[in-house]
């Protein structure tokens, strides 16, 4: 009798405490509690920027650097094995930066896909939703554009992952990837406000990027058309090239999109490049042809290169040329994680691209394209005899002039490798500047080895690796 009573108690206790073992994560937002309010839509779009504008993002850590190390601009001389591989065109599939580029871009795509799919499920108005989706699609297009330029055929992921056990998508053909990029940029152009504002891209950024995409795939007439739209609406060049790289002057009129950095999200640029007495590591040496390309009286030389500087004790020092483009001594006297932004799309880039596309279409310069390149040159002319206006040039010479101009104008902004691959001049220029013979394989990065292991659908590896 007595025992029965106890057993009864026990059973009661077991039954009575069913929800005792239920987890209620009060300090976490779970999927059940999301998408209920309007602000969640904006928050999902904001989250995409983490993959661009944060100190962990590949755009901050690598984009500006590795794209320009694989070129005629400079050499990496530090101890990082992965960066050395980039600098010497000996990239192996096990290279960690290659893997991080892959993962970082797909993480951005995942965040964008989540926003694109779920914004409609939040209580925002249809018009607002459309703008936000357009912003997310612009960013997704940009991630894919970079992915395709890096790796060629990659998996086309347009949904976000719901379960870790979901099956993996195999490589998609280039055509379908291109279709998505074109559609995303086009949609963004049609639905975003025209101008970029406060670091967020506008329709002009989208159409300019669309132009660059067309130029990359060789659809030059469309490229010209898109760039013309982009250029016509933009504010134009800043008067002083140096103003592009001042921390107090971020997201200025010339910038269509940049990697926005700040005090909490600093970039490594100055730590890597500045002279040792300024706490830098002097790990990047510009090539001699690059240094010599700057004529006296070119404003860009003193902005891009450091040849003399004042150290912390107030002594003026000289050094072999180093990179100082992102150094704004008025705010950051010595090297530290810098708040200086890295331009991704800007007006001068679009102008030079217009010249390049025009050259392809007409096999030589014309008034419009000469106007474009000469505007860029004129802006940096500090003495009348420097950087004279270019006259009519044939296709080959004009291309060379454009590439030289892009070298001076856009160095260490993450454009160079793409530029040289796009124009088919990588091998020739790298041989000229650095004496390194490169091959077809160097027009692509290898698919990261760990990814190949996880997803056999990524086979075959890119040729040559």
């Amino acid at each position, binding site marked *: 009798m007595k025992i029965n009573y106890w057993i009864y108690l026990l059973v009661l206790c077991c039954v009575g405490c069913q929800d005792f073992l239920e987890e209620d994560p009060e300090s976490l937002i779970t999927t059940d509690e999301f998408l209920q309010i309007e602000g969640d839509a904006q928050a999902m779009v904001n989250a995409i920027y983490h993959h661009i504008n944060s100190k962990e993002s590949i755009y901050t850590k690598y984009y500006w650097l590795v794209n320009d190390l694989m070129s005629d601009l400079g050499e990496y001389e530090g101890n990082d*094995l992965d960066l050395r591989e980039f600098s010497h065109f000996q990239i192996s599939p096990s290279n960690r930066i290659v893997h991080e580029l892959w993962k970082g871009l797909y993480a951005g795509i995942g965040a964008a896909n989540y926003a694109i799919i779920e914004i409609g499920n939040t209580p925002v108005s249809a018009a607002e939703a459309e703008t936000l989706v357009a912003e997310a699609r612009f960013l997704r297009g940009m991630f894919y554009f970079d992915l395709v330029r890096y790796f060629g055929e990659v998996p086309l992921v347009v949904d976000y992952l719901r379960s870790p056990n979901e099956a993996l998508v195999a490589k998609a053909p280039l055509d379908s990837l291109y279709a998505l990029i074109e559609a995303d940029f086009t949609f963004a152009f049609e639905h975003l406000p025209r101008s970029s504002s406060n670091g967020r891209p506008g329709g002009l950024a989208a159409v300019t990027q669309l132009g660059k995409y067309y130029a990359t795939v060789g659809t030059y007439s469309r490229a010209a058309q898109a760039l013309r739209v982009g250029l016509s609406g933009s504010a134009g060049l800043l008067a002083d090239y140096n103003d592009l790289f001042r921390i107090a002057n971020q997201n200025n009129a010339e910038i269509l999109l940049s990697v926005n950095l700040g005090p909490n999200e600093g970039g490594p640029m100055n730590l890597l490049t500045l002279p040792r007495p300024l706490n830098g590591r002097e790990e990047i040496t510009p090539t001699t042809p690059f240094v010599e390309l700057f004529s006296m009286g070119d404003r860009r030389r003193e902005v891009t290169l450091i040849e003399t500087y004042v150290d912390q004790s107030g002594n003026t020092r000289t050094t072999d040329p180093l990179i100082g483009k992102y150094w704004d001594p008025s705010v950051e006297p010595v090297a530290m994680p810098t708040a200086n932004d890295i331009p991704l799309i800007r007006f001068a880039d679009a102008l030079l691209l217009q010249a390049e596309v025009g050259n392809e279409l007409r096999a030589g310069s014309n008034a419009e394209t000469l106007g474009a390149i000469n505007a860029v040159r004129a802006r940096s002319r500090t003495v009348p005899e420097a950087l004279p206006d270019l006259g009519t040039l044939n296709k080959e010479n004009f291309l060379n002039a454009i590439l030289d101009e892009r070298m001076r104008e856009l160095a260490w902004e993450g454009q160079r490798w793409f530029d040289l691959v796009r124009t088919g001049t990588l091998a020739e220029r790298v041989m000229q500047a650095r004496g390194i013979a490169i091959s077809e394989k160097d027009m692509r990065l290898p698919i990261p080895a760990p990814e190949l292991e996880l997803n056999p659908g990524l086979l075959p590896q890119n040729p040559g690796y």
Partner: protein
Amino acid sequence: MERNKTIIILLLSALCTSVIAQSDDILLDSVSIDTSSMSAETAESPSALPAFPNGTFDQMLQGNFAGVHAVQASGQPGAQMMIQIRGMRSLAGGNEPLYIIDGFPLYNDNGLAISGLTLGPALNALSAWHPEDIQSIKVLKDATAAAFYGARGANGVVLVETKRGQVGAPMLEIGVQLGSMSSLTSPQLLSGTDYATFLNQANSAGGRPGQINSPAAFGAGTDWTNIIQDNSALMHTYRVGVSGGSENMAFRIQGTYSIKQGNLQGSDLNRFILHANVDARATKSIKVRNSLNIARLDANTIATDDNGSGEQLGVITATQIFSPLLSSILTAEDANYFNVRVDDEGNPTPELQSSQAYVNPLALSTAIDSRLVNTRFSDYFGIDVSLLEGLTLTGGLGADALFNEESLFIPGALEFQKSPGGTGGGSRMQSIEWISDLRLKYKRQFGSQHNLSALIGYALQGYRREILGGTSRGFENQTLRFNDLSVGSGKFITSDRLENSWRSLMASVDYTFDDRLQILLTMRSDASSKNGGEAMLFPAVGLKWTVSKEGFLVRLRLSAGQTGSFAIPSYQQFTVIDEVSSSLNGVTINGLNRVRLGAEDLKFETTRKINLGLDIGLFADDLFLRADYYNEVTDNALTFVPLAGQTGYDLTLANIAEVANRGFEVSLVTRRFGQKVQWNGQWHLSANKNEIKNLGATNNITVGSEVLGRDEWSILREGESIGAFYGYQSELRDGVINYRDLDGDGQITRADRTIIGNAAPTLVFGFSNTLNYKGIELHFMLQGSSGSDIANFNSLLIGNPNGQSNIRTDVLSTQNPNADLDLLFSDHLIEDGTYLRLKRLRVAYQLPKSLVEKWSMGSIKIYASMENIWTGTKYSGVDPDVSHFGQQHLFQGVDFGGYPKAHQIVGGIQVQL
């Protein structure tokens, strides 16, 4: 003066308690069933083995138990231990054992016992118990013993009983203990002159400018290691207690106050511990027992055990980086000297903002205020009700409440690459863990030969932890430190709340025939909130057969069963949406994204264990041999599995791995030697072989917590043991390091990495001896391990003549100045960690009874002991008993910037009145 005082206090010293004779007259049965008789455990009583002076009781696990691999991870006061019983099982969850302290089950995660604001390694949460209050420690390893603890028993169980009152007249016990410490030898670095000469050579060989004019002028230079050491560090302990009891009531109340100054400046640990146990017979059939421990720990910590990232401050690392050419008269008060560096000509140059990650080590250890106060109440109340003849109902209620306060202030001048103004912070954490259990026990003898006992039980356990903290940066005026965080310019607030709960049902039957054959069956079912409450069964069976004749005994033991582990944080099953920040137009904006995907179908890690044991006792067990062979397989071990990059995520938690441990253990115990000499000797030897049998779809996962920017230095690979070091093979040619191109592609890439060592020891051993002769007691203990490797990351700095830091004297003679060895994680850093250490030596003298009684006292014992006396090892670092990452078992065997352990010399007196 200080010396004299020390000697006087030493002479006056007295310490108590452990003298209380062990009596069998215990009022109550243990609340928990004693399954230990079946197990392969070796039971020790710390009253036979003296406790570590001013240490923690888990230090006793090192060298005193077969099958236990214990590493004292750090030398800071209240040092944390890393403890493995029969190897490692989990790749993502914890590998520490379950502690049952006076019936209260506790998984010791040091990280959960702090809020994590203060600098340096986590404080050992078990330091809330004073080792002198511990009566016995038993380690349960095999299936029948551990299966009784079901889903938390797989990593082994440490049963801890504290001292209780005995029947007898009340007795007052007083003890004082005093000791001093000095750090173990530190690496021999270059003197000022040699360093200046070396810099000159390195600079000219490397084509860099800068020649120091007169190296000879620097002489010995500044030995920063020596500067930050506190060679007059003292530890003192004062204990007062009363114990006694009558037939219906016994009690023991003990108060301890102890101060332990660190052997590095700026660190200490003060402990106040009240331990009170009461046993009472309330009525004829009801007995109650209460075990209470209240502790207040007050610690000042310093920034050791950093990861070399430059974002974390590191005192020990700074002693190696900070130039010996700078004068030691730099004071912590003078902020300009925090950021001083030697210019090319060898002159000190103050800097307004720190240009170096590592600044003046003296300032780091003394100008930073990093304080932790933990208050812990642990109580377990048990009640036994005798229902019928042989039938007992046992109930228990326990609570373990922890209140943590931490505060931190780092002066702005010490912060690297941050805006000026300093950082202050405060945090509060409180946690409560409670248990409620109910057991029905039946015990009966049938005839003279059949003994049967059975039990069914039920337990609920819950845990809640809340944390609130804030830091503030950029003070206009730094005098307020952490006391008014509202004045800073950048503020960050964190808070968190975490809960989990367990429900368990258990049953066991124990049958013994004629003291010869014993059969034990246990069954336990556990459910945890961490996977939504899905219950799992853990059965085990044990057989024991004993032949005993005229002082000779042979016993065979066999057990098999299943145990579990689930030492992962709560809420892993949920997909979590969290803030991710980015910079937009110069300001920080937050977004929301799914930062983690919920892990699906999480299960307990289950370990199948088989144990075969043989005991041989000779001369009425005066010589006792215990040998065990075990084989354990953990299915569905939790692992962080890499996800394909295209998913947008890095990792997910899943039960995919299979891990095996097998090995043997031998213990030899001697108890007597002649008539007058008592000799208690224990030899323990254990060998464990760990193997990852299966890793799911991938068969390689590179892991490694970051040290000096290297974070893929270990690998999980099928067929290999956990703890493998993964890197490049290298050789030094003419002082220049060359890596081997293993895949033969003509260049050194990540594909050339291979397994270059393993942190897990193949053999662990300990020899402990106590000799008694006419009141004189001599105790010494040797312990060590062999076959383990250590990754000595310190060599990247002080073994690397690249001119960026001081170097060991031996590096200069063997290597090329200016060779930069700071490249890859290679076998250049891997060293043999085999060691044998004379851990302690203790002499005690029990004054003759006749003399003591003349003074109307119960007993007086004086003793002196030394710790960490001698170490035999080939390891070039300070201490082969090291584990930089503490309880992160996956990342064991790393040595970098750790708080050095100390030689201790302690004396004391124990008096009973």
